[in-house]
């Protein structure tokens, strides 16, 4: 463990005792020490956002040739742990960092991020240029907008058209109603042996999001009430149980090896997820199934978001860089060329609505058999309602998953499952 960082040789007059204190001072006091003109802007991100930011370097250099853009890249999970640590200790903070949609709630509930409505930021001016639900996702219960959306994940139903054809089914059979979707699953199973979907839980994940009334959360209402013991949840659980009892789900979780193997072997006929999944299927999950997939809206007019990325500015970052960080964030999120480049190269569906008129949306997608599916996703993006976040959303998700597991695996009856979930959430809501 070197006591002194090599980049900062102490002056000869520095005494040993001071030298020992120096690294600590450097680590803790970077904003205080950086009094000169800003030379670098640090952005922390995860794949593939890091590549998107790097791709924007030429455009940034054209505006600010004297300010270097430094991208710190970590794996997505490591990135969010690192940002939590940096925010809690208020040290080693980047000037701008990417946040995945799942973590936006957690980061926005504290006071570690700048409210972008204030000067010098002014996100209200960007409001008409950003897709409404994503901006709503970035708004915390206090009404502060603490991050700016750059890409979104409109929910879609991807299905295997070849398996449907073998079961003599068409797209409307799948998406008109949930009951029709399950009935189609029975016929697919009978005709091809393939499962309708990967996990019965997937149905629950969509329905609980689709049933949110504006202003409420998925699990908690606006007045901190618990809203899981409702007819809507009961219907959701019943549909999932019907799927399981009919043997229509492969019982595999997303991103497991069985999941991708199921796609490769044609053992899973449909998957509901963010539009970006088509890109993953094409690139690595199941490239061999090219041309056999199609995209549709989710069944029964459900609209939900899966994932998405936001940029946030830490409140404790160097004050001198804040305006620049905001300029960069604005550029990354609203610049038509950059947003479309990220869409083309990394399947990052744009949050900037100005891009939606681009001819790229109408282009056929070879992986989806030439379907111009981006128009489907564009429509979904404009119809999604964002649920309000709650501090205990992650815990609530775990509770609901557990109770659903008990219903599916152990035959627990649905009213008592939802009753137990409600009790557990009530205990947590107060924490």
């Amino acid at each position, binding site marked *: *463990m070197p*006591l002194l960082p090599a980049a900062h040789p102490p002056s000869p007059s520095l005494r040993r005792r001071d030298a020992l204190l120096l690294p600590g001072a450097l680590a803790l006091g970077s904003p205080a020490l950086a009094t000169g003109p800003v030379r670098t802007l640090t952005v922390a991100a995860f794949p593939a956002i890091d590549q998107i930011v790097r791709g924007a370097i030429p455009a940034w250099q054209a505006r600010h040739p004297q300010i270097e853009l430094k991208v710190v890249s970590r794996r997505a999970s490591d990135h969010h*742990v690192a940002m*939590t640590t940096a*925010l*809690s*200790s*208020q040290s080693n903070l980047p000037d701008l960092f990417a946040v995945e949609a799942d973590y936006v709630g*957690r*980061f926005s*509930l*504290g*006071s*570690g*991020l700048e409210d972008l409505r204030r000067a010098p930021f002014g996100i209200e001016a960007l409001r008409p240029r950003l897709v409404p639900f994503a901006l709503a996702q970035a708004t915390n219960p206090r009404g502060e907008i603490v991050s700016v959306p750059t890409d979104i994940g409109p929910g879609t139903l991807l299905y295997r058209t070849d398996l449907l054809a073998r079961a003599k089914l068409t797209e409307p059979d799948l998406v008109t109603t949930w009951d029709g979707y399950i009935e189609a699953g029975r016929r697919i199973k009978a005709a091809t042996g393939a499962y309708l979907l990967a996990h019965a839980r997937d149905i629950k994940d969509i329905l609980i999001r689709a049933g949110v009334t504006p202003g409420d959360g998925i699990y908690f209402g606006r007045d901190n009430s618990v809203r899981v013991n409702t007819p809507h949840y009961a219907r959701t659980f019943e549909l999932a149980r019907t799927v399981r009892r009919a043997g229509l789900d*492969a*019982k*595999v*979780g997303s*991103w*497991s*090896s*069985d999941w991708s*193997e*199921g796609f490769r072997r044609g*053992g899973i006929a449909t998957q509901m997820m963010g539009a970006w999944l088509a890109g993953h299927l094409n690139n690595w999950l199941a490239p061999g199934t090219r041309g056999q997939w199609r995209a549709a809206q989710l069944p029964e007019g459900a609209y939900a978001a899966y994932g998405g990325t936001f940029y946030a500015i830490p409140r*404790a970052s160097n004050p001198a860089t804040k305006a620049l960080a905001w300029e960069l964030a604005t550029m990354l999120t609203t610049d038509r060329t950059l947003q479309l480049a990220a869409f083309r190269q990394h399947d990052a569906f744009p949050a900037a609505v100005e891009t939606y008129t681009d001819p790229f949306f109408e282009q056929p997608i070879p992986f989806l058999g030439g379907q111009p599916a981006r128009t489907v996703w564009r429509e979904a993006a404009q119809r999604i309602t964002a649920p309000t976040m709650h*501090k*205990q959303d*992650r*815990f609530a998700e*775990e509770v609901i998953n*557990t109770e659903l*597991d*008990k219903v599916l*695996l*152990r035959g627990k009856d649905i009213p008592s499952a939802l009753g137990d979930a409600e009790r*557990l959430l009530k*205990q947590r809501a107060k*924490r």
Partner: protein
Amino acid sequence: MDLDGTAATPMRTPTPLRSGHAAQPTADAPGAANAASAASAASAASAASAALPARGRRLRVSARSAPYVLLLPFITLFLVFGLFPLLFSLVLAFQSWEPTSGLGAMHYVGLANFAFALTDEWFWKSMFNTLWLAVAGGVPQHLVAIPLACFIHAGFQRARNLVLGAYFVPYITSTVAVAIVFTLLYSTDYGLVNAVIGAMAKWPVVGALLPQQAIDWLNDPDTLKPAIAVLVFWRFVGFNIVLYLAGLQAIPKDLYEAATIDGAGPLQQFLHITLPGLRPMILFGVTLSVVGGLQLFEEPFILTPDGRGGSDQAGMTAAVYLYRMAFDFNDFGAASAMSWLLFVAVGAITWAIHRWIGRGLR
């Protein structure tokens, strides 16, 4: 171990580190931390004795302070990565803290976190899971390791180290590699375990005892715990064999010779010489298993999707739960309180085991 390599002190010390004291072998204790502290202690002792006034002048380190200077690297690391987090979690256990708001956002809540932990159903559920896995993963380790160590001790001559190495490999294998391999082995539709069970289920007699459908090892709460226990057993049984082999070598051979002359059979020798002779090692091994078992984290974490602890939290041990409390559910205060409750439980159970096995050992 070469002491010149380990003496990474910030001061230049021309003291004769190669003196008689320091050249002693520093015990091949497992764990780098033990070896490092043993080495620092040994080098400190030699430096203290060597730094006589006449030669120590150039050092500007008095004989009195030399041990502390030499211990400095260890103490620094211990303070930063050992003591500080410990004290910080003790402070946190009495606070409510929204971590992303910075350190200033902490406020004192007294014993509320402990009260919450003790009334939290999931905390008790995770404690039960922990105990279940500690027993199911820990007890077989010793029941297998002791006879196996005796067998290796008696049965292998030349190939002994090779066999021992084979059993020890899981202990030093990277967790990530283990995770990938075991997830594949346990895979429901494409895994080797189910393939073997499926093939055996077609056999006449054995088949009737085996399930005819593929077992969903990692998603079914009833099979997840055994799956984790098997992994724990596999990882640590080799370590225990090494322990017991070392213990066996310390039992004097003449005891067995005397017993043979007296007409004692192999089983009697095992029960009346080997087992009592191994008792100190059993105490040591069981203590390590208890401490490790109650803090079980890696195995359930890597085997369950996203480290969530599995369906119905069947694999959520106390350590996984308090990790999730902090880093997933964002409740650092309650997580710290739970970690201290877990510490108390580990201490109490270890004490009880010492009373039970260690009776009269001194």
